[in-house]
């Protein structure tokens, strides 16, 4: 993105790709083709993240949404896609209802985006004291434009916010109240995932049935 010169060619390309993919998902009737267009749409969103220097979010988008979810989707589709389930017919009522919900959601997003004063926000970011930035640009580390987009996120997930705390003036008693990171949400998410994993393993385990007469498991 070139700031003043408007969006770059690649930004427009990926934006068009994500919108066209999303529209094609809605318009196509075949489940696997929908999955393909979903790949196009989600992959273009990942491309937009890369253009905004958000490498980690972009790679996660590729790995989790494009790679993981769509593989599982295709997996499920291939097990079920036969005869009546291959094409999904929609009744007019369904079309009307989902179009209404989609239009409302679009209106909400448009109004939200329109409510932000982007010029003022850009000036605020530019005004921030560069000395208060994270200790990422020292000798041996890359500048953000060269791919250093991970350290601030990693530090914040570990509960440290050097981008906020470094270079701050100490308070009256000579101490700084440190900003909090995202260690607690991060840990909650990991425990949640662990619970889901154990639950899935419990549900998917081989069930043993008892034979009534002999009492032996079969």
């Amino acid at each position, binding site marked *: *993105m*070139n*700031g003043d*010169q408007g969006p770059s060619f690649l930004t427009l390309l990926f934006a068009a790709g994500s919108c066209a993919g999303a529209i094609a998902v809605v318009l196509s009737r*075949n489940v*696997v*083709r929908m999955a*393909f267009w979903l*790949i196009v749409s989600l*992959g273009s969103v990942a491309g937009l993240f*890369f*253009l905004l*220097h958000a*490498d*980690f979010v*972009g*790679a*996660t988008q*590729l*790995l989790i949404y*494009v*790679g993981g979810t*769509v*593989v*599982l989707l*295709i*997996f499920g*589709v*291939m097990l079920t*896609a036969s005869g009546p389930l291959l094409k999904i017919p929609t009744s007019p009522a369904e079309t009307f209802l989902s179009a209404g919900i989609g239009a409302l959601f679009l209106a909400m997003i448009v109004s939200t985006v329109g409510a932000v004063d982007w010029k003022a926000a850009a000036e605020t970011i*530019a005004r921030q004291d*560069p*000395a208060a*930035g994270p*200790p990422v*640009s*020292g*000798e*041996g580390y*890359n*500048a*953000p*434009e*060269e*791919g*250093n*987009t*991970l*350290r601030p996120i990693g530090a914040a997930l570990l509960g440290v916010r*050097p981008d906020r*705390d*470094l*270079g701050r003036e*100490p308070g009256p*008693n*000579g*101490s*700084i*109240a*440190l900003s909090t990171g995202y260690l607690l949400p991060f840990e909650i998410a990991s425990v949640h995932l662990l619970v889901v994993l154990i639950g899935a393993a419990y549900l998917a385990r081989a069930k043993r049935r008892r034979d009534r007469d002999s009492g032996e498991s079969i």
Partner: protein
Amino acid sequence: MSVLAAVDSLGDLFEETWGLSSGWTLALAAFVHAVILIQLFAVAPLVFVWLERKVSGRIQDRLGPTRVGGRFGWLQGLADGIKLIQKEDLVPTAADGMLFRMAPYIACVASFGGFMVLPFADGWVAVVSDIGVFLLFGILSLEVLGIILAGYSSGSKWSLFGGMREAAQMVSYEIPLALCGLIPIVALGTLNLGDIGRMQSGWLFPNWMIFHDPFTFLAFFVFFTVATAGCKRAPFDLAEAESELVGGFHTEYSGMRWMFFYMAEYGSMFLVSAVAAYLFLGGWHTGLAPLDAGIESLRGFGRNTIVEGFSVGSYVANLIFMVVLVTKASLLVIVQIWVRWTLPRLRIDQVMQTCLKYLLPMSCALFLGVAVWPLLLANALGRTSLIDWPEGWSRPLGERVPRRAAASDELRVTRVRSAERGVRNAEPSGDSAFRTPHSELVTRHSSLVTSSNGGAR
């Protein structure tokens, strides 16, 4: 995403010699670099197909290709390519035409995309990313989409079976692949492939990650096994299994589209081998400290020859290092070929069992081990490396991170120039922070730590 430093300097050259506008020169320079990268991606299969025929021939007590291009059949790959281009492009009537035509491209693009973040030498990389390994695995995991779509859209039962097997195999083998990739990364503390390469400078023993500790040593073999399975190579090539499924997912394909699948396969074989070379085998370094130092001393020679920031010496040094890296990766590809023609194919249940019952627990145990290793070493020996004899053979990993002044100078010149031209919105504030001396940052950091400690008291 990143400053494409090489693209910028080539763009400068075009701008100065032909007087084009900066936007066009950037596009042209990016095109030139992409074509160079595609050449590597296209020539690798050409060579490896010949190698595969030759190695399989020798293993089976045959001669392999002997006619095309002299005694050793050097041009067999080219002959194969020409033959495949001439063939008719068939689409079965039962197939889903659009997806059938699209699937080879997805597989090919996913495999090729991984080369974006792969450095070929220090600084010779299209996209510098601090999450390089993660991004590379993320892109590479998309190859399976092409295979599954091919299997589904062919409208053939053989293909569907092949696609299903590939899906099951990939979903399970990605877990040990990621875990094994993490094992050296836990020891190194970075995901940046360039930094990973730089950290393994010096003598191969004990500076290469494979010799770092017993866990990384074992992890290399697990990683290589899993990576072989990830490229659906024999003995894990259940997706094609020509003795059962005719050709598996590519049964219905012919000509160029079939070739795209093979380009993707050989491309990703080379890619995972190069990643294995980076994670375990010292990246672009030869492993002989004096030789590496000699090549490094070429850097900075003949600076600013054609354009500002370009150095002939650095170019030659990078070229030598690239040859070293490509040699390492090719040797690993040869091992993959050797394994393919030596071991029989596993059954699908055996493939799953190998992954979930053996490789996965092994990689988990190795991961735990490598996490505990520094603690063990510090308590038992009181130092950070297993061997510190002779003196100076192994420096602590962290000391090897900072990049040399020469390389960062070159990058800085390019970055400042691109910022001046307004090609990217490289903020000048970020640049001044980049020049902040390390010592000052350390002081600032330590003052923060002391003051926060004071606050806690």
